[in-house]
């Protein structure tokens, strides 16, 4: 998926999710579901 398409989806989800939910989802997507040890 292109960056632009990703941005479009992110923008879409940003409008629907709370800021905390959105930030978490971004991190989950970025790491493909792997928990980033730095953040926990």
């Amino acid at each position: 998926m292109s960056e632009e398409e990703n941005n479009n989806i992110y923008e879409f989800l940003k409008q629907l999710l709370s800021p905390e939910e959105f930030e978490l989802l971004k991190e989950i997507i970025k790491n493909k579901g792997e928990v980033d040890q730095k953040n926990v």
Partner: protein
Amino acid sequence: MFEIEYEIKIGDKTYNQKYPDENDVNNNIFILSGPNDRGKTTTISLLALALTNNNPDKVKNENIKSKLLFLFNQTVFNLNVKLKSHDESIYIEISGNNKNMEYRFKDASMPNPITVGYAKIEDTVDVVFETPGLPEEKIKNTLVDLMHTFNQYKNYCQKYERQLERLIEELTEYNNKESKRHKIEYNISKINNELQVLNNQFELENKKFEEIKDKYAIYRYERAQNRLKELTNQQEELLRRKPDLSNYNQEISDKLNKLSETFSDIKNSLLKLKNILISYNIISEEDYKKIMGVSINKITSIEIRDAFDSLETNLIMKQKQIEKRKEDLSSDWSKYQLLESLIDVLENFIKDDPEIPGLQGQKVSTLLDLLINQKNALENQNEEYKMLEATEKDIPYLLGKIKEFEKLRNQYIQADNRKKTIEGFYDRNHEKIESQLKQISGQIEKARQELSDAFTDYDKLQNKKLPYPPDIEDLYLSQKEKHDGYIKKIEDLKKEKEVQERLLNDYINIEKPNTNMTLEEINNLYKLAQQVEQKLSEYEDNIKKLIDRNPAQGYDKFYEELEKYLAKVVGTISFMHQERKISQINIRENYYKTDDGEIISFSQMGAGSTALNALKIRLEQLLSQKSNKKYVLLLDEISDIDPANFEKLLDFVKEKTKNDEILLTLMTKPANYENVKCQPVGV
């Protein structure tokens, strides 16, 4: 003429492709037909990349641009392309990969192709990339893609949640263990405090106990000595009361031995005199067998006494008769002696057998025969005489032994009676005294042990004199109870401490889970991830319902944002000969809304003549521009155009190809073939 050959790697998979067949290369219009996901769009996209020098931004359509970007960024490809116009006025050769494209070019004025820069190609060729299908279909595909994307995100969320669950589990376990560890450490510290207090108390009590213990040691030793003495006296007293039968037993035993010896002598004598005694009726066969066969313990019996009485009487009575008989036989015995002597003399002469002088010519042998006959006639008398002669001493001996036996027997019976008399008295007290003696003996053994034990402590005092009060034992026992109580409490606490310390070992090396967050924070994060997953699931469901033309109720905000998203993805539409930038695509009511606020319904954009016209008009617009450029027309997914309209489009393209305005037209169309076919369309 057209030819494309490429190799493409996506991930660890490699695909090779070459279109069209050698027989068909001289055509300029082709339709790629085949099942989905077999590289039809990839083929036209690679051609577009080759013609834009790997620069997707040169393609205006956003959908196509994103496809090209995907190919450019996420695959590795090598390709070769050959293109010749219908009138053969220009020829282009392109070869290259993601990093670099090389171009060779030839026009009618040139004998052979030469290497050129991309600028030459850009000046000569323009690429038109279109997807002329129905708007609803295109949007539906976008929605399906979005649904898949959300599903993917949902999977990521689930994966994330599983990891948090594990972390929560590990952290909970860790916290539990830590809590247990703290509790055990607290227990140990509590025990240590208790031990300290108890040890202090014990020290004071022990001092008191040691003082009393020394006094008690003296008391105990003295008491043990007294007790042993008392018991020994009791034992001696009992022993005095117990008669000693050993002398009686010895006497009886001695007498029985003598009696037995005498009886044995009598038996030997009887054996020797058996014939005389039987033949003279001195003893009956029955009495003889009785005496000879009696066992030693029956020799004092009445039967034996009677047998001996009878034997003694008979012996005395028959003694004279035997002497008389012996005298009677004495002359025969003398004759027998003479005959024996004469026979011995004559036997010396028997060899020559002379005549005996004075006996009127009788020979020795004649006289010897006569004498032997005389001797034989006296043989029985001689034997009887010898036997009687032998009894001369034996009978008085036997009589003497019988008298001795009777005397000894009487003595034995008297001794035995004496013993029995004593035993009669003894039997009555026997059990009581023996039981008391046994009891005393056990008590003495214990008293000795007690004395030995008491001595150990007493000896340590080295004859120190310590006066003790009369109630020393009570004092000692009471203090000992306290003392032992403290020891037991201390021992119990130490054991409990060991138990706790062993338990603690299990909790010393607990590895902390790799997290800086608290359990509560992780739980909150987990709940948040679940919320996100739940919402994504709802969004996925909402999209599915929208595709099924049954939008979910109460999700207006969601659908509004979705429509804005679709507008961004689609970007522009071509309508009434114009590109329009759109701000919203209302899928629930099937219309586009342009930036200018104009509403264009999907039906106005339909795939019939409107869609075709839009494409045709766009192409006509492009072709009418005063330009020397030739067009490469790439049309993806022409299936959404109905057949009649498609024929119209094809006629238009054929005409423009013959006019040499279109260099190549490559179209894709789904079909149920096994493989993709590259079908030429004759001009």
